């Protein structure tokens, strides 16, 4: 057993209101720089929708992630080592800036400087690359809230999994449904970007599993951009280096939640440590698509198991950290409650950001002034979900509908149980039947309810101390001096090489 610590995340999609506050917090802290304007290390997209960059999930086009060969081995979909050298002068699968969007601003000064005339002065949009006037044709959340859905949402690659009837239903005006999908780097256990980097600039930090790009080693070969199936490594066109989400490690090291977590209005985000067995990663990746979610859960270890604790200690994880990991909200959502699922497990990178799928059921109808939920039992509502289970399974369970159905049923059980307690108009017998089917007790329901609805900041973000608080302050003499830098703690200014 090779026990390692991974900082992991859970996003509770039922609580996401799609306000983009997380994206703005991240942008202001990290990517408000030349060459990085188009980057959204954190972005929020509407599902169904094409996302950012457009249709990023379509790996036939973008060639990200891993595939399992017929012999059962894993290889990068986009490139082998040999191909990497052959394609190093021209990467045939590199997304272009227009697949994201051309960054723009407005010439606001024109509003003040225009000479007097018959027309109102306007602030024309200008490109942040060329500085020339441009027509804005795309943005980072261009199809927000199903805007232009016949053009955008219909092209969602995941809709390939649903039946034509279901698809038609989804876009009927009065039955339209959508949810938000906030995305950051998944800090995977088997990251494609690391494996594809010819320079060896990308690495996983052993201490907390954060995946980082060493800006001084990156040579701009750009294979990481192709290899990440989530398109969460970005090429900085001005500095000629690739960049990605750093999980705000300077904040984590001082016990603070990352900017996007901290600013989340809906409090949908949970952060905590997980212990996993690094020796079993390979085996967990070589299973069939349907087994991927379970295999990933298997390698996450129980932090209360004495054997695991002993192995963790042997690997340099101290007792204080283990105590924090035992209180990790991520462990509860992912392993104990089986509510949170990885995004697109079929990319086989073992993403360590998990999502509680959105519950969008038709629970009941109000008829003649009474709340009627008797139709087809309470779980019937899950099957009648307005968002086809098949679609959610495509996103969160590599097509395994059982995993999504279980999570949704559990969410519904929690909801119904709490309604029984607080409103009292639900039949207790039906609720207990639900609980019996899922094999959960009132205690677990209460715990899920508390962590979902009432959790304080300290319960949502359980950050194992890294004991580097003082060290960081000693390294950084002028904390303001690092603003606008590429990365953190640079001695050398990030000036583009000649």
């Amino acid at each position, binding site marked *: 057993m090779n026990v390692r610590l991974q900082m992991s995340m859970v996003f509770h999609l039922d609580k996401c209101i799609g306000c983009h506050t997380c994206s703005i917090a991240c942008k202001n802290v990290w990517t408000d720089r030349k060459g990085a304007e188009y980057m959204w290390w954190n972005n929020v997209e509407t599902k169904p929708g094409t996302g950012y960059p457009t249709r990023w999930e379509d790996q036939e086009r973008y060639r990200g992630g891993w595939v399992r060969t017929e012999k059962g081995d894993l290889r990068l979909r986009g490139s082998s080592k040999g191909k990497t050298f052959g394609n190093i002068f021209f990467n045939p699968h590199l997304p272009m800036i227009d697949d994201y969007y051309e960054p723009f601003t407005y010439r606001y000064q024109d509003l003040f400087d225009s000479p007097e005339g018959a027309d109102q002065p306007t602030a024309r949009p200008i490109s942040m690359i*060329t500085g020339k006037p441009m027509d804005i044709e795309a943005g980072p959340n261009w199809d927000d809230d199903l805007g232009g859905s016949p053009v955008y949402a219909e092209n969602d690659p995941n809709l390939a999994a649903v039946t034509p009837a279901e698809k038609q239903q989804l876009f009927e005006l009065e039955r339209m449904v959508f949810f938000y999908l906030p995305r950051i780097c998944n800090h995977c256990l088997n990251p494609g970007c690391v494996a594809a980097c*010819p320079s060896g600039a990308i690495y996983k930090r052993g201490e907390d599993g954060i995946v980082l790009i060493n800006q001084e080693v990156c040579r701009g070969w750009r294979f990481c951009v192709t290899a990440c199936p989530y398109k969460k490594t970005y090429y900085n066109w001005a500095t000629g280096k690739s960049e990605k989400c750093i999980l705000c490690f300077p904040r984590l090291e001082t016990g603070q939640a990352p900017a996007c977590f901290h600013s989340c209005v809906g409090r949908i985000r949970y952060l905590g440590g997980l212990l996993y067995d690094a020796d079993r990663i390979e085996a967990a990746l070589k299973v069939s698509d349907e087994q991927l979610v379970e295999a990933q859960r298997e390698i996450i270890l129980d932090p209360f198991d004495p054997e695991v604790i002993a192995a963790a200690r042997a690997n340099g994880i101290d007792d204080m950290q283990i105590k924090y990991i035992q209180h990790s909200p991520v462990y509860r959502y992912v392993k104990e409650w089986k509510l949170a699922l990885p995004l697109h497990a079929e990319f086989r990178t073992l993403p360590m950001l998990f999502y509680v799928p959105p519950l969008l059921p038709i629970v009941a109808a109000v008829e003649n002034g009474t709340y009627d939920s008797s139709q087809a039992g309470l779980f019937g509502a899950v099957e009648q979900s307005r968002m086809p289970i098949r679609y959610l399974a495509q996103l969160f369970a590599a097509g395994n509908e059982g995993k999504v159905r279980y999570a949704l049923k559990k969410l519904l059980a929690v909801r119904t149980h709490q309604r029984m307690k607080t409103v009292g108009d639900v039949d207790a017998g039906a609720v207990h039947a639900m609980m019996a089917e899922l094999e959960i007790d009132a205690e677990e329901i209460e715990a899920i309810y508390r962590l979902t609805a009432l959790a304080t900041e300290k319960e949502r973000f359980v950050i194992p101390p890294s004991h580097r608080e003082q060290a960081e302050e000693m390294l950084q003499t002028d904390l303001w001096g690092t603003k606008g830098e*590429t990365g953190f703690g640079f001695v050398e200014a*990030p000036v583009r090489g000649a």
Partner: protein
Amino acid sequence: MSLDVVLFQIFPYVAVTIALVESIRRYRQKSFSYSSLSSQFLESDQLFVGSVPWHYGILLVLTGHLVAFLFPQQALAWNSVPVRLYILEITALAGGLVVFIGLINLVIRRLGRARIRAVTSPMDVILLAVLLIQVSLGVYIAMNLRWGSSWYAAVLVPYLRSLFVLQPDLSLLTLMPWMVKLHVLGAFIFLALLPFSRLVHLLVVPWQYLWRPPQVVIWNRDPKRSTIR
């Protein structure tokens, strides 16, 4: 001191010294600036018809120069049979033309596209100009001064080798046509420009990728456990 001595006896050493000292200094002190500075992200189609022929062509042509430099006698022996000479010359000329076409496409792209101009430094322009002159001279020589693969091995290689062993001997070089001399000078100018331009990317070809394990883990507190470094 004649101009030949300055250009072909002193300048080569100056150029090599500049290349060595500055590229090492830059690597150690400004490693952030070592990058291929790829602009494929901003424009792809035109890059394909420029970058691919340019790079593959230049690899072929430079390898030819290097092989004849290392094995001049074998090169002459190979060329002693006319058919083999023709094959070598045609391959070299074809390589030169591929390089030329690629370079022209790169120049058109760099100057013609607003987005690419936004990431063009003055050094990029200087570099393209030097390369364009150098490649044009090379192609001209290959077409007009026949059997270069033979006279290069017989005349220029001894000169280059004399530089290498620190006993410069210009006697043969001074007899060459000015086109050839310019081509030799271009090569040393190219060397001197290398550490100041994006050309440094050819010093950091990522060979280590060939034998590296796919996943890289670095332990900050216990560096000995790390996968690399």
